[in-house]
């Protein structure tokens, strides 16, 4: 095995040299090939080899022989999904370029495909979250009478599926598709509210610390240091355990506690950023001019500082949203987050997790927990793509 790997590497190394030499002689020493470092040539060959392997693996995945096809099932899905999403993003971008106002058209023209994919995905999630009640075929807690539990996704009766429940049913016979859609509402909605709260707390305090400085800055910053010193997930877990005792006593839903706890923990990160960005802005001459004019604190923070800090804060908002979202999913997975019977992606992964063991011989069955995990992953990736794009735009980088 190692021998084969070495032979393949040496072969590729030789091929890289041949590739560069051939390029040089065919194009008559064009600058592209002439100035190409060997490492780049090797990279091209390695990339080509990986692409060839993917194509081979994909044909294996579509093989009529079940045993071989099962082995490459997830790779096949990934490749098909990738191509499908790429096409969807491209179509969306073309649409955006021809429809809408001059401003939105201009925005779409300079947009990379990754960003248009991210925006498209976020829009779809938002639609699902807002209209969950209309779109979902069943209720999120509805146990449908006469329907078996654990129907395999795929809708193929021969493999244990049911066309009625294309995404299958869970361990007590609820429709997974409906729960996924309601999950968007619960998980994403709560994450959004939490992030907003975290930004409100962290942003306000951060700007105040940057503008006023002195002892207020010291007190706030040291408090934040203490909070940040505790591992956030474990800290959240601890507080949630306490809150789960208080919640029934006080008659406040546990979810409210969760929102506040995660918001406070995450606001420390926002505070750090807002303070750093604010400090850079505070030293500007226009802030000095405003101070000398006799402007109050409110005007300084909201009219002079905040508009200049929106770009980094917005980018951080996207990232922070992902982290909050993952924290909620993690807490739910651990059993202290969003409580059943409310549908939540983290809980769904935990409940159906056992099926992953079937991946080798019954990949469709293993898909059940992966649907919720995939929903989480997709949104995280999408948000990050959009954030990257916004960062790139706000940093003023060209090309």
């Amino acid at each position: 095995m190692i021998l084969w790997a070495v032979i393949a590497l040496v072969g590729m190394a030789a091929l890289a040299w041949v590739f560069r030499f051939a390029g040089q002689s065919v194009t008559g020493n064009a600058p592209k090939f002439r100035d190409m470092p060997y490492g780049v040539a090797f990279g091209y060959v390695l990339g080509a080899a990986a692409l060839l392997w993917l194509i081979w693996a994909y044909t294996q995945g579509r093989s009529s022989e079940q045993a071989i096809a099962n082995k490459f099932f997830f790779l096949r899905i990934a490749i098909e999904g990738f191509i499908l999403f790429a096409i969807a993003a491209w179509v969306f971008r073309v649409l955006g370029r021809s429809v809408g106002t001059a401003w939105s058209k201009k925005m779409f023209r300079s947009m990379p495909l990754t960003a248009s994919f991210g925006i498209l995905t976020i829009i779809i999630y938002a639609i699902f979250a807002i209209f969950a009640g209309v779109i979902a075929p069943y209720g999120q807690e509805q146990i449908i009478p006469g329907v078996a539990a654990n129907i395999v996704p795929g809708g193929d009766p021969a493999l244990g599926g049911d066309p009625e429940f294309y995404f299958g049913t869970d361990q007590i016979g609820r429709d997974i598709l409906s729960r996924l859609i309601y999950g968007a509402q619960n998980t994403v909605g709560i994450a959004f509210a939490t992030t907003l709260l975290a930004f409100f707390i962290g942003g306000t305090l951060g700007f105040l610390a940057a503008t006023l400085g002195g002892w207020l800055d010291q007190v706030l910053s040291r408090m934040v240091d203490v909070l940040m010193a505790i591992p956030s997930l474990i800290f959240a877990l601890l507080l949630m355990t306490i809150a789960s005792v208080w919640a029934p006593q006080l008659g406040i839903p546990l979810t409210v506690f969760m929102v506040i706890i995660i918001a406070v923990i995450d606001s420390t990160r926002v505070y750090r950023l807002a303070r750093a960005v604010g400090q850079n802005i505070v030293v500007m001459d226009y802030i000095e001019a405003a101070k000398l004019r006799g402007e109050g604190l409110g005007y300084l923070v909201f009219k002079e500082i905040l508009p200049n800090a929106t770009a980094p804060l917005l980018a951080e908002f996207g990232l922070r949203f992902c982290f909050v979202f993952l924290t909620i999913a993690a807490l739910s997975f651990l059993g202290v987050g969003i409580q059943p019977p409310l549908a939540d992606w983290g809980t769904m992964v935990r409940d159906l997790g056992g099926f992953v063991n079937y991946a080798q011989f019954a990949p469709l069955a293993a898909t059940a927990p992966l649907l919720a995990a995939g929903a989480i992953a997709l949104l995280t990736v999408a948000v990050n793509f959009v954030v990257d794009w916004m960062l790139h735009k706000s940093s003023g980088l060209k090309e």
Partner: protein
Amino acid sequence: MTDQPLVKMRDVWLEGRSDEVWNPIINGVDLTLKRGEVLGLIGESGAGKSTLGLAAMGYTRDGVRISKGSVEFDGIDLLTASAAVKRELLGKRIAYVAQSAAASFNPAHKLMDQHVEGPVQHGVMGRGESEADGIELYRKLRLPNPDEIGFRYPHQVSGGQLQRCMTAMAMSCRPDLIIFDEPTTALDVTTQIEVLASIRDIVEQFDTAAIYITHDLAVVAQMADTIKVLLKGDEVETADTRTMLAAPTQEYTKSLWAVRSFERPLKPAVQTGAVPVVSVQNVDASYGTVPVLHDVSFDMHEGRTVAVVGESGSGKSTTARCITGLLPPKAGQILVDGQVMPADYRKRNKDQLRQVQMIYQMADTALNPRMSIGQIIARPVQFYLGLTGAEKRKKVDDLLEQIELEPTQYYHRLPSELSGGQKQRIGIARALAAEPKFIICDEVTSALDQLVAEGILRLLARLQDELSLSYMFITHDLATVRAIADEVVVMKDGRVVEQGPKDDMFRPPHHAYTDLLLSSVPEMDPDWLTNLLNERGVDNIGDAAVDKM
């Protein structure tokens, strides 16, 4: 071989990319440079000087491309040369000296480590040999302690010394061509002399060809054999330095030459007993425990301009901060109209704040980039005068007209959509909006091109006559002082070393420091530097002269 030009650029067109469009930067410029010749490239900012200078190395910044033309260095076509060939040339035979040495040195490594990198990488010399050569170059460039200065970190030496270290680094491989990109623009006049003198010496000693990029005509007159004038990417004219200075043929060149002629008529002396608008009395100030001002006193009268002169670190701006109340003085007081002002600006009332306004050096950081011009000017109008709605708009329009900008055209624009000079005008309008008696102008023209700066000075002079404003004009440029000041205050190390009416200041005898400042201002005479150096003696230029005082 000897007559073969070293650099030959033919019909070079350069384009820069912005908003998905390629915009022209340089439109078909020719450039020829012989061995040992120094070419001065001048023009205002945005004229494409630096881009052309870099193109002479066959290099373009990101987002810039050479769309047409040819660049040859010693017979090698740099545009088609392979990366390997260029690697051999750059650093070894072509060197580059950047404008800001402080930003160009790696702060994490000692100067000598950075100095030897070129020769060692190119295999010109070994490390030991290169270090010895570096020390020799430091000595030739008249750096203090040449034996040990190379073993310091960049932050441990002064700006002028750093700039000379960079020149030494550029010389380390004995290149055939050095490109100097505004090497003295960020320096004080006294330091500038040192750098100019040493650059000129070393270029002569090693018979190196050089392209000297600058916007300062007087500087280029000292350095260059030939001068090329650029305007918005087009060549205006090229000629031998003496010919060019004596008889420029093009209108634009003439206008550049004429800038320094602006001078205000002299005003009658202040009546004795008149109450000064602002009076600084025996002010001492310090940052933390470091004292920066010692017993500073001077008066500013209505309708007059007091220029505060001195090199950086002399306490000019600190004095301004004391007057505005940003830095409460340790001792002494500030009087406005004979009334003592509270030391801290937070303790001043709205009317006291209104009376003292400020215009900043960097218009870029003085205007909030997220506010429109209308909003920026309207804020003090509303804040101090309490005007709203149509009245406010009317006042803003009036102010825009006063600073010679068309209100309808500029009201909704953002600062980023204005040129440097226009931004500075907005800064002036914002100060005027408060209807003050007294304005502090902190180096307001030093970041601007000469033509633009002259426009600002004329505007300020006109406003002074119309509104009988008093200015405190902080500057290190004596040409500006000559143009606008009524009285001059010379500062050094936080003390006032000399003060009086302008005419007395420009007439000898002077305080030794004033004399040094005055004689360090480059003049348009190409022999000025040579004469000056002869007069002062080699050991008595710039830093050395200051240290002796």
